[in-house]
């Protein structure tokens, strides 16, 4: 990462307008054709150098090429944190991260157990359109590059461990592109609504609400919404599997007062287990609790939730026998009992 940052510092000043921050190489593309497509004719050597390619070398399909940027690397914003979240740049010591901070390109962000963070990778100040990435507990990402050129947003993230969710773009927003790579595998998609997980030697991807491209072994697989696949980087992605659809939640009922932590839902056929999520917002950009249950209920002996005047939201995601997380159930709103908080 420090190498990437150094390269960005050296080469980030000269530039050509209308360039994305990166491209995922498609079959048949060359450095020259990509430079032509991106308006970077004459800067092929820079592209090769940024991406670690030798002179005259051509990238393989599925490789991620970094493109010269007009400006220095743009910053991301820490939208929400919950629990213990740290960031570090290069070899620096990790430091606690709080909401509202800005992240320099190349910063590594990590969450501890039971901790979450949502990064606003790119924000278009003019339209307020944005791309958000949520890290689940015990996850680490490096935000390699984020870029806004005109209305076009693009982000490149390396997933070191754990799981991330690219939050769906809101209705009517210009879709942004977020590319995630790990273990030599790459996913790239527009509009968010994707989840990626690092597994032993593989990147598991789930296209929850929007299509997603997944690359590996110089091959590309297009996932439709509601499909998942794994890529090990050196081999073509696994065939797409259909994701399980979220269950119907039973108790507590929507908009009810959460007096007892008795969560129940209807069983999902072929589900091996479930993941219950609680967040302080209906979009789950501020998750505060994720629990796994092998059965269609969760009845904890103890539960800790941050008090919020508006309450919290919960949903359930079925997990199939291959480990794929399915489509979440509809979020259910819960209010805290009167007299349980207030400041």
């Amino acid at each position, binding site marked *: 990462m420090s190498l990437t940052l150094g390269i960005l510092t050296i080469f980030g000043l000269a530039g050509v307008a209308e360039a994305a921050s990166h491209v995922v190489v498609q079959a048949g593309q060359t450095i020259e054709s990509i430079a032509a497509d991106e308006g970077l004719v004459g800067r092929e050597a820079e592209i090769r150098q940024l991406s670690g390619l030798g002179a005259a070398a051509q990238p393989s399909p599925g490789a991620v090429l970094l493109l010269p940027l007009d400006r220095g690397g743009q910053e991301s914003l820490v939208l929400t944190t919950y629990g213990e979240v740290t960031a570090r740049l290069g070899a620096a010591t990790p430091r606690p991260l709080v909401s509202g901070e800005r992240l320099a390109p190349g910063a590594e962000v990590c969450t501890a157990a039971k901790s979450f963070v949502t990064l606003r990778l790119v924000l278009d100040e003019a339209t307020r359109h944005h791309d958000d990435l949520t890290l689940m507990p015990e996850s680490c990402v490096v935000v390699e590059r984020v870029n806004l050129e005109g209305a076009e947003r693009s982000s490149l993230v390396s997933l070191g461990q754990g799981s991330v969710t690219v939050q769906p773009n809101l209705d009517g927003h210009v879709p942004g592109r977020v590319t995630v790579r790990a273990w030599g595998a790459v996913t790239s998609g527009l509009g968010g609504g994707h989840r990626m997980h690092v597994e032993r030697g593989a990147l598991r991807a789930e296209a929850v609400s929007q299509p997603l491209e997944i690359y590996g072994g110089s091959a590309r697989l297009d996932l439709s919404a509601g499909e998942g696949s794994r890529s090990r980087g050196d081999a073509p992605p696994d065939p797409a599997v259909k994701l399980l659809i979220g269950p119907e939640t039973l108790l507590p009922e929507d908009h009810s007062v*959460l*007096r*007892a*932590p008795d969560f129940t839902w209807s069983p999902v056929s072929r589900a091996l287990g479930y993941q219950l999520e609680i967040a302080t917002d209906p979009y789950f950009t501020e998750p505060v609790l994720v629990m796994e249950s092998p059965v269609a209920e969760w*009845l*904890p*002996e*103890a*539960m*800790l*939730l*941050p*008090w919020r*005047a508006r309450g919290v939201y919960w949903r359930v995601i079925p997990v199939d026998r291959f480990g794929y997380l399915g489509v979440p159930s509809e979020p259910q709103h819960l209010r*805290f*009992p*009167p*007299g*349980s*908080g*207030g*400041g």
Partner: protein
Amino acid sequence: MIFALLTLPLASATTWGAYAAGGAADAPAEDHAYVALGGIASWTVNPRLMAELHTQAGVTSVLGPRVDARPEARVRLTGLDSKNAVVFIGGYGLSARPDLGPSGALGFGLDLPTGARGVFRLDMRMVTDGLTPATAELSLGLVRSPAIPVVVAPPEPPPETSQPLVWLPHPYCEWVPAEELSRHWSRLPPDHQVWATAPGGTLQLLPPGQAELTALSLTPRPEQGGLVLVGIPGDKLMVGDVSFNVGADGVAVLITPEGVVEATVVGAGRREELLAAVVSGHVVYLRAGRPEPVMVRFPKSSASISGDDIERLHKLARATEGWEYELQGSASPEGAAEVNARLAAERAAATRAVLEAAGVPPDKIRVLSVDRELASDAPPEDLRSCTVRAVPPRPAEE
């Protein structure tokens, strides 16, 4: 015509009164002259408005009876910071003279506070016959406000306040900026004490007689969080020695300073100690365990209970909290069935006797009939037993 009013102070949450009255008209309608005695029930809607019910009975100038019943509104016209008050009076009701008909009243009054809770009233009304002005009425009286609990903690202050606040009790019942306290002071009972708070501060009771707040120095509010104790209906939930209100669902909700909280759940024969780490700005949900049946074992061919089991049953009885118990005795299959059935019943009776001796009311114990089909493949030592199971109290019979 001048009326005389006499008001008798009555102790009640509502302001009560009684009076004598009379009236006259300048028209020759001789039955428009009258004297009467009456009473008032009054409720303060807000510091400027009182809703009242006036009833009076009297005689007219021709010695005919006259009874009036009339709801009235009493609206304070002068400022709240003045001790005396001019009020507007308006109402409409019924009058029997002796024929029943509608009757209204419009007028003005003067309230003159006296003593700690008394107010003399001098009222002048135009009383109507239907909607037609009929008689002029003048009254003088004394009412007495109900006693006010002066050191009852007020409700939580508004959460988004940015300034010091004081709680004005009845008849205001609202949080107002502390700088307004002196303006309202004269309307408050002399023995009243003022609750105050400020952003980031705890509720604080000001010294008696402090009518102004020039500098409010409050104890910083401790870091605190919510604790939701989840028991089962009928449980008693305590933190330390303090019991908390438990909802019909067995749940108690409280706010407590940050730190470790030791809670106790008592009921259904169990007494469970729970530890919770309360975190500021968070809500901790803590669930008590479900009651487990207790099995009292007996020696072969015996219905005598061991000392250890007696102690277990006593412990059970001490944590009953309104629950009831169902007992079922059983016996191992050796021997004659009739003998075993009698032995099972004796074991249940022995268990019952211990529970009753430990303080469980007899009507809270039910002995179930001997189950001859009880799992015969169970170990014999388990079958030589009586099972005690806590059940929720039965709803009271009509």
